[in-house]
């Protein structure tokens, strides 16, 4: 007999996604949707789409969705979660959205240990608007607003959000994963699941930073793009967990299903 071992999750709607071929957003959408389905919270999950390529997320996730102003996902999430603590609230955001215009909202939601989950898609570029420099654009990387490559003298240093937010005192869960290879995708899913669980257990702010490929605005083919993730992005953005709730404090409960993220750096 034949068994369907991989099927499209009901956490997504049926609408074909409008992302470019090879874009990481699609993979990440699926992971989040599967986690929502698997945790059995689909009927009480509210998603927040960003302003960015994945503004379309509000058509794809099969749950209630809201579309906030650029960068303000964490603020909108705060309002929702405080009113509906019984709901699972996640905000899906790009690097421009979360780390540039939305920096204050991100930092303060984290500092408030606001009990929400952020899916942070770091593709080192402004995808939606056509490839401008992001706060996470690598040094030397070209973009339409850093046509000669990002120059630290003029444009400063790329921001590593996980490391940065980990310097706050508020508890929470911070992890960086990627979706450029099957093994990484699997780990990414575990990270997403753990982040949602952290929220469901009321352990504070959780953020999954996902290094994602943007073939279009990197001016690469999809295959070149996943290699770029491996060779260029991950060395600057090391994968792993940066904060786990109450890791050090004895006596307080651990988030269950803790994942140990040990990423291979060899790639063939």
């Amino acid at each position, binding site marked *: 007999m034949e068994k369907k071992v991989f099927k499209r999750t009901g956490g997504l709607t049926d609408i074909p996604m409008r992302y470019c071929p090879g874009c990481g957003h699609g993979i990440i959408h699926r992971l989040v949707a599967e986690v929502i389905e698997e945790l059995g919270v689909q009927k009480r999950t509210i998603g927040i789409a960003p302003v960015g390529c994945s503004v379309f997320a509000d058509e794809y996730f099969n749950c*209630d969705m809201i579309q906030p102003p650029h960068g*303000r996902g964490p603020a909108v999430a705060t*309002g*929702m979660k405080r*009113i509906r603590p019984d709901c699972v609230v996640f905000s899906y955001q790009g690097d421009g959205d979360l780390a540039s215009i939305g920096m204050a909202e991100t930092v*303060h939601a984290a500092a408030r240990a606001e009990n929400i989950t952020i899916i942070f898609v770091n593709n080192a570029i402004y995808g939606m608007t056509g490839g401008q420099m992001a706060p996470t654009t690598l040094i030397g990387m070209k973009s339409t607003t850093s046509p000669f490559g990002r120059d630290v003298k003029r444009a400063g240093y790329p921001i590593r959000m996980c490391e940065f937010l980990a310097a706050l005192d508020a508890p929470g869960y911070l992890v960086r994963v990627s979706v450029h290879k099957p093994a990484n995708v699997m780990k990414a899913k575990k990270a997403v699941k753990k982040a949602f669980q952290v929220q469901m257990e009321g352990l504070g702010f959780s953020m999954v930073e996902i290094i994602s490929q943007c073939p279009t605005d990197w001016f690469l083919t999809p295959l070149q793009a996943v290699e770029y993730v491996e060779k260029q992005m991950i060395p600057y953005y090391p994968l792993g967990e940066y904060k786990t709730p109450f890791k050090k404090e004895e006596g307080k409960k651990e988030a269950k299903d803790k994942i140990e993220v040990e990423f291979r750096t060899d790639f063939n």
Partner: protein
Amino acid sequence: MTERILMKGNEALAEGAVRAGCRFFAGYPITPQNEIPEYMSWRLPEVGGTFIQAESEVAAINMIFGASACGARVMTSSSGPGISLKQEGISYIAGAEIPIFYADIMRGGPGLGNIAPAQGDYFQATRGGGHGDYRVIVFAPNSVIEMGNFPRICYELADKYRMPSMILADGLLGQMMEPIVYDFEPIDPKDFPEKDYLLGCTEGRERRVVRSYDLRPGYLEKNTLKLEKKFKSIEENEVRYDDTNMEGADLVMVAFGTASRVCKSAIPLAKEAGMKVGLLRPITLWPFPMKVLRQIADEVEHILVVEMNIGQMVEDVKLAVEGKSQVHFYGRPSGSVPVTEEIFEQVKMILKK
């Protein structure tokens, strides 16, 4: 609270919002409205509500966006600089047709200006300081009683029309104390009627999306034309104003908020001096009482608009009057409050007595 008690305008406003069912407030300190968040910070927890001091005005407006989309009666408040920062959010909320209520307790501007009472944000409030075609229902109280009792009406209209409503008051109304009685019993949020656009639990219904965008050619236009219809119906049905001494007036003053009180106090002086002077006080600034003004213009030669700015509402008055009366303007901008005698002087000058 049927007993009259002395209350600060800002506190009366906050209490009025809570009594009207407000259960979520997010705001950021700014003078002269600080008593609102301060009051909310202890009062809301008392009724099981949530107070958040947001990291900024931008965050505050978006927090209430989220909270309202989840069903709470929400509020934010600020003064000029902070309200400016909220304009993007207000435009989104208007576009997404989510009800919110907020207050602008005006101070002197532009810029950092000062913290004295002013009315320089009239344009911003009535024309939509944000981008795109939208409107906000604007109430202009002129006493602590109204500061306390208008929030309920604002909430009702915001809910009815699914849009932002606001109170536009100068710092004086926020800071002063006067006796107040609430004209309504506290409302329990449990008694609100069901809304069919709220987010939360999808059990037994289709999923919902709250958004202000539509990239499909022509769709957003359709939505905006729907909004336009709504606005027209509000202009038809929700105008509120107050008039005094209009019978046979030779001159009608038009003023809102604190300026209207000062104008009112000039009426007896004028009467004594043998002049027939009336006062039209718009209570809703948008929708603006166009029709009544048009009627007045048919009968009265002089209209004197008094504002605590360099001339903003006067445009609406002119739009209503269409050249039929002479429209005069007297303004004290950026933190100066006119006194009775000044207004009387203006009246005398116009009527040349």
